[in-house]
């Protein structure tokens, strides 16, 4: 509904994505210089001026599929590669984390503080690269300019728009389950204790007045929670104490993050009409993607710099298993990009997406015009010979056999 939601959605999800990738890069012992290059390339692409210009244009939010396509491109704006299963998991984690933050956000305006927490962290990632720092700072200032003076009602509309986007997402994330912030049914725990939002009074008091405005009676009631006064308001300046911890990095190198993807029930909310829309990208979305990604400058890998594959799972087998067992309705994949009605738009989009190909790399999941069907192998066989990957289990043959046992026949590569 609010046409100012997209920049906040994009930057916060992007921030979560960077937290997760940073953690995986460290967990997989990727050499520091490579890891830093990845982070710098990603952040530099995210904060590209032309790209952000498109993003900040007033527009409705697009579907999860459309947004996922953008992050897919973004994640591949570096020498790092992700298989579809890892990309799925990355997107699951990003969205559930931000959903949690939006839900627990004390005041609607505090969404800005969450955004600033992400931006503060992003600035820290690129503290050694002044040029990229500048890009981030400029965006920071732009956000303060655009959102700083919005009234509370507008922030609440933004929050409601975000919650609409996250509706019906109940993916269980192990780090959330362990920390008891998420229930086993995928819903988040909403605490009924702690500080009230800034500007809200602790519940429990009834004051009654006469026609002259004098207080005539005062009563207390048991409201059921255990709230206390808010100590201070977070800073909305370029730098300062945000007070709110939502939006700060919750991942550490040692905690592996699993997601359990629970499929919807048979009588899911998607009726036929929604389903058709969910499977194809509408014309508007194609236009949006074309504009947005036209502004996304993807650097081609320079020289002989070899790429590497990042795995969001602990092993190759886990990644493969996840790819095969992901419920159909939770597939983010852009399945029918060719089936879209507007042929011209489609061709233009295909062309733009083709421009993003880094031609040194062998065919991977990022083929022109769409993604390999998840039933196919994620290219494990080719990629091990093409470039050195740094995973502890470089045995694609095992993955091959795994499929065989599941399907009873050899999968066609």
């Amino acid at each position, binding site marked *: 509904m609010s046409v100012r939601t997209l920049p906040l959605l994009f930057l916060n999800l992007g921030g979560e994505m960077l937290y997760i990738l940073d953690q995986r890069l460290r967990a997989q012992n990727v050499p520091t210089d490579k890891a830093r290059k990845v982070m710098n390339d990603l952040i530099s692409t995210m904060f590209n001026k032309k790209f952000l210009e498109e993003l900040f244009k007033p527009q409705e939010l697009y579907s999860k599929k459309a947004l996922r396509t953008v992050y897919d491109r973004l994640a591949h704006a570096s020498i790092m590669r992700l298989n579809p299963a890892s990309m799925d998991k990355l997107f699951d984690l990003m969205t559930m984390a931000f959903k949690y933050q939006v839900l627990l956000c004390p005041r609607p305006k505090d969404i800005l503080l969450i955004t600033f927490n992400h931006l503060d962290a992003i600035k820290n990632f690129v503290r050694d690269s002044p040029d990229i720092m500048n890009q981030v700072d400029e965006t920071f200032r732009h956000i303060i300019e655009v959102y700083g003076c919005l009234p509370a*009602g507008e922030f609440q509309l933004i929050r409601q728009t975000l919650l609409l986007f996250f*509706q019906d997402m109940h993916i269980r994330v192990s780090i959330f389950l362990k920390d008891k912030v998420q229930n086993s049914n995928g819903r988040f725990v909403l605490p009924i204790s702690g500080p009230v939002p800034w500007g809200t009074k602790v519940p429990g008091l*009834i004051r009654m007045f006469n026609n002259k405005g004098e207080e005539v009676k005062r009563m207390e009631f048991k409201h*059921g929670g255990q709230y206390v006064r808010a100590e201070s308001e977070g800073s909305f300046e370029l730098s300062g104490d945000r007070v709110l911890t939502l939006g700060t990095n919750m991942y550490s190198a040692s905690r592996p993050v699993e997601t359990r993807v629970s499929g919807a029930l048979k009588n899911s909310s998607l009726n036929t009409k929604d389903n058709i829309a969910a499977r194809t990208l509408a014309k508007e979305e194609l236009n949006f993607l074309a504009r947005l990604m036209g502004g996304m400058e993807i650097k081609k890998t320079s020289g002989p710099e070899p790429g590497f594959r990042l795995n969001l799972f602990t092993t190759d087998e886990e990644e493969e298993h996840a790819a095969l067992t992901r419920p159909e309705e939770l597939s983010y994949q852009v399945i029918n990009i060719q089936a879209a009605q507007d042929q011209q738009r489609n061709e233009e989009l295909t062309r733009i997406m083709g421009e993003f190909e880094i031609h040194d790399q062998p065919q991977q999941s990022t083929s022109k015009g769409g993604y390999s069907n998840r039933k196919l192998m994620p290219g494990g066989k080719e990629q091990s010979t093409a470039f050195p990957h740094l995973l502890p289990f470089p045995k694609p043959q095992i993955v091959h056999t795994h499929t065989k046992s599941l399907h009873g026949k050899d999968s066609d590569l």
Partner: protein
Amino acid sequence: MTFLLSTESSLGSHFGTSRTSAPDRSMYRRERPVPMRSCPAALYNNLSVLPLPAPGLTQFALVHGPTAQLLSAAPDGLPVSQRQLHTKDGAGPGFPLITQAYWCVLPFRVLLVLTSQRGIQIYESDGSVMVYWHALDSTDASPVQALFARGIAASGHYICVGTWSGRVLVFDVPAKGPNIVLSEELDVHQAPITDIAAEPAQGQDCVADVVTADDSGLLCVWKSGPEFKLLTRISGFGTPCPSVQLWQGSVAAGYGDGQIRIYEASSGALHVQINAHARGICALDLAPEAGKLLSGAEDSFVHIWKLSRNPHSGCIEVEHCHAECVTDTQVCGARFCDLRGSSFAVTGYDLAEILRYSCV
């Protein structure tokens, strides 16, 4: 299949804990919830209830996003019928969203009104036939403004609907047939309308019978008629007022900072200020025969308050009756299911059932 959802989930999350205050004059217990196919949108006032003539049957309406769901259920919770309504001109990736569904009880008929990002759809009460469509006027909109209609109430034979610009549209509804006419446009509010409330005019003295609220917290009190007359303005000082009710000449308003304030409608004098909730209030409802007020907020709590008029001062007084914690749920809709307030229903974001409570 939706019952499966209940059994899979952790019991703690769905049965909710009843944390009643003591002394508790009204004890409410959980009844069987009504399962739904999908979860409600996190929008204000996202539940409307219509008791049906058939004994014990209640009809519920709520908004999911691009669709509105109507369900009727028996006291045992089993859904009797379901219907989904869509926005007119629904097309495109995020179909036009429906912002609210509300049953308008008029002297000779009951109509279901849906407000959306495109306009206003009015149906027969069971949602079977659309009798009227009004498209929103977007000529004055700037590109950064979200366009939508929101806030619905019936006053006599008028239906009032609010819009994003602050304009309130007043429709004149005939006793039967589709000949609904836009009778007036009220241009006082400058911020998007959040909610509208009305009550039957209380005799000759009490003239105020409609109150409109907006995102800046401004309340406008009106006298309805062929030409609506503005009686009072009550400022909210910037805090949105998502929900408002009118009872015996008093305005009860729920605010985004969790406060409930009760004003004398004709003068605007503040009579009661309640620090009621720890998060923004999303729904208020009234049981007029008992003077009970129901409030639901994003803090997971639903409270019931008893309003009464002090015989000496004539001022409104409030007592807290009941507190209900809907565990891990941000309440987005709450309604009494009868005029005496002996039962109520609650909807919440990410909750795929309508919770029901009734007095023991």
